[in-house]
C-alpha cells in the first residue's frame, strides 16, 4: 500500500547501519520463521480490509437496496466532496485535532517543566497528573458531559454558583466544539507531559551548568539549550497525538453525538455506514481519511526513525 512507499523515506536512514551480530550458522528460513506468524497475521487483518475499502469506494452500494449494487466510478468521491455535512466534518476533524494537540502540547510542556524541578511530593503529583489519561475514554466523556457540563447540576455551574456568579451557561449547547476539545485536552495533556518529561530528563546536564556559569539567564537556557533538545520530543508528541486524535470517536460520539456541528470524519463514516447504510460513500470517506493520514504518518515515521537512529 501507499504507506509502504511513504515509509521508505524514513527507513533509509536507519538501514545504512550494518545489522547487528550477523549469524551464519542458521539458514535464512530459520531466522525468518519467528517473524512470519506476526507478519502474516498483520497483513491479513490490516492490509486486506484497506484494499476492500478501496474497491467498495468505487461501488454503488446501499445495504438497504441490495439490488441497486453496482459500479459507481468516482460518484462516491464526488458525493463526499460535495456533501456539505461531509465537508464540514473534514473541517471539524482538522479543528479538533489541531486545537487538542496544540493546547495539550503547551499545557504538557508547562507541566513537564514544573515536574522537572525538585519539590516535595513530586511522585505523588506526577501520579495525580497521569490519572486523567487512565480513565477509560468513554467514561471520561460521560463524566464531562453529565457530571461537569450539565447546566442544572454539573460541577462547573455548581462552582460558579458557589463563587457567587449568576451565570449558569449550558456549556455543550453554547460551545459544543470547545466542550469536546476541553475534555480531550484534559485526557491528552498527561500523554504530552510524559513524553516531554522523558525528553527533559534525558537532557545532558553539563551544557546547562556551563551556560549558567557563563551567566546565561534561565530564559536563555530554555531558548538555546532546553528547547532545541526538546524539539524532537515536541514533534513526536504532536505527531502521535495527531494520529490518535484524528481517529477520535469516543468524545464526539458521547458528548455531542455528532450534533451541533462537531461531527468529525470518524463519526461521519460511522454514521454513513451504520445508520445511513451508504457503504460506497462511507468507503470513499475512509479512503480520504487514509490519504490524509499518510501525510501525518510520513512525518511521524520520519521523527520516530530519527529518534530510533539516535537511540542506537
Amino acid at each position, binding site marked *: 500500500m501507499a504507506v509502504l512507499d511513504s515509509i521508505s523515506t524514513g527507513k533509509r536512514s536507519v538501514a545504512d547501519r550494518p545489522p547487528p551480530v550477523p549469524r551464519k550458522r542458521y539458514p535464512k528460513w530459520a531466522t525468518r520463521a519467528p517473524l512470519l506468524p506476526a507478519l502474516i497475521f498483520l497483513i491479513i487483518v490490516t492490509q486486506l480490509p484497506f484494499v476492500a475499502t478501496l474497491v467498495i469506494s468505487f461501488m454503488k452500494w446501499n445495504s438497504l437496496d441490495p439490488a441497486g449494487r453496482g459500479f459507481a466510478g468516482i460518484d462516491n468521491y464526488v458525493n463526499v466532496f460535495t456533501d456539505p455535512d461531509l465537508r464540514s466534518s473534514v473541517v471539524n476533524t482538522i479543528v479538533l485535532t489541531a486545537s487538542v494537540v496544540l493546547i495539550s502540547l503547551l499545557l504538557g510542556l508547562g507541566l513537564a517543566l514544573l515536574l522537572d524541578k525538585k519539590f516535595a511530593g513530586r511522585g505523588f503529583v506526577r501520579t495525580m497528573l497521569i490519572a486523567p489519561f487512565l480513565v477509560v475514554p468513554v467514561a471520561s466523556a460521560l463524566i464531562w458531559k453529565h457530571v461537569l457540563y450539565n447546566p442544572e447540576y454539573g460541577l462547573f455551574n455548581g462552582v460558579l454558583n458557589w463563587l457567587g456568579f449568576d451565570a449558569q451557561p449550558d456549556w455543550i449547547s453554547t460551545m459544543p466544539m470547545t466542550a469536546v476539545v476541553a475534555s480531550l485536552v484534559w485526557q491528552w495533556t498527561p500523554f504530552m507531559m510524559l*513524553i516531554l518529561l522523558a525528553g527533559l530528563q534525558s537532557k545532558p546536564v553539563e551544557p546547562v551548568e556551563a551556560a549558567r556559569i557563563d551567566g546565561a539567564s534561565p530564559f536563555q537556557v530554555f531558548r538555546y539549550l532546553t528547547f532545541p533538545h526538546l524539539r524532537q520530543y515536541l514533534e513526536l508528541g504532536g505527531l502521535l497525538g495527531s494520529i490518535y486524535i484524528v481517529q477520535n470517536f469516543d468524545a464526539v460520539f458521547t458528548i455531542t453525538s455528532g450534533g451541533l456541528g462537531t461531527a468529525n470524519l470518524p463519526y461521519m463514516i460511522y454514521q454513513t455506514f451504520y445508520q445511513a447504510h451508504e457503504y460506497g460513500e462511507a468507503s470513499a470517506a475512509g479512503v480520504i481519511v487514509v490519504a490524509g493520514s499518510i501525510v501525518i504518518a510520513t512525518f511521524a515515521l520520519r521523527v520516530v526513525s530519527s529518534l530510533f537512529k539516535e537511540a542506537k
Partner: protein
Amino acid sequence: MRRIWGVAAWFCGILFFLPVAWMVLTSLHSESDAATNPPSLAAPLTFDGYAEFFDAGAWPPLINSFSASIGSTIIVLLLAIPAAYALSIKPVEKWTDVLFFFLSTKMMPVVAALLPIYLIAQFAGMLDNISFLTLLYCSMNLPIAVWLMRSFLSEVPREILEAASIDGAGLITILRRIVAPVAMPGIAATALICFIFSWNELLFARVLTGVVAGTAPVYLTGFVTSQGLFLAKVCAAAVVVSLPVLIAGFAAQDKLVQGLSLGAVK
C-alpha cells in the same frame, strides 16, 4: 523560588485530578445528593450507585471486556515475542524495514477498515461474537507490542549472548537464562499496555457487538442520552470500568512513556 514551583505543580496536579476525585465522590453519593446545585460535598456516603450498577446487568459486559482484553493480550505476546526476537537478537536482513512496516499499520485510521471488517464478520456469522473482536484487538496491538518487545529485547547484552553460544549453550538455555531475565519486565509492561488499549476500545466494539458480546465501553454508551437522576450510577460505572486501566497504568507507570511512544522514547 523552589517553593513557588512546588506550589504551582501541586496546584496543577490537584486541578487535573479534580474531575477524577469528583467522579469517585459522586459515585459514593445518593442520587439526590449527586444532583444538587451548589454541589453537596459533605453528603453521606453510600454504595447504592455501585449496587445499582451491578444489579443492572454490568457483569456480562465486564466479563466480555476481560476476555477480549486478556485473550488478545496473550495472543499478541505469543506473536510479538518471536517476531521481536527475529528483529533484535537474531535479526533478519532488512529488519528495520519490517519494523517500520509494523509501525505504519498502526498509523492508519481504523475507521477506514470498519466497513470491510463489518462485512467480513457478517459474512462469517461472527457479528456479536467476542472471539472476532479479540482477533481485531490483536491486530490493533500487535505493532505496538512488536516495537516495544524489540526495544526491550535489544537491551539484552550482545557480548553475553555471543559468549554463551561460543560456550555451547543451546537456544533454550540462552532464552531461559539470559534473555528471559532481561525481557520479563518488558513483557509485563507490554502486556499491561496492550490490555489498556483493548479495554478502552469503543468504535469496533460498538459496531461489531450487540447484546451478547457487548464490552464495558459499549455498556457505558447506554448512559449517553440518560436523563433524570443517574449521576451516582454513571459515576460508579465510570469508576468500575476505569479501575482495571488505572491499576494497569500505574503498574506500568515507568514503561508507560516507552509504550505510548512505541518504544521511541526511553
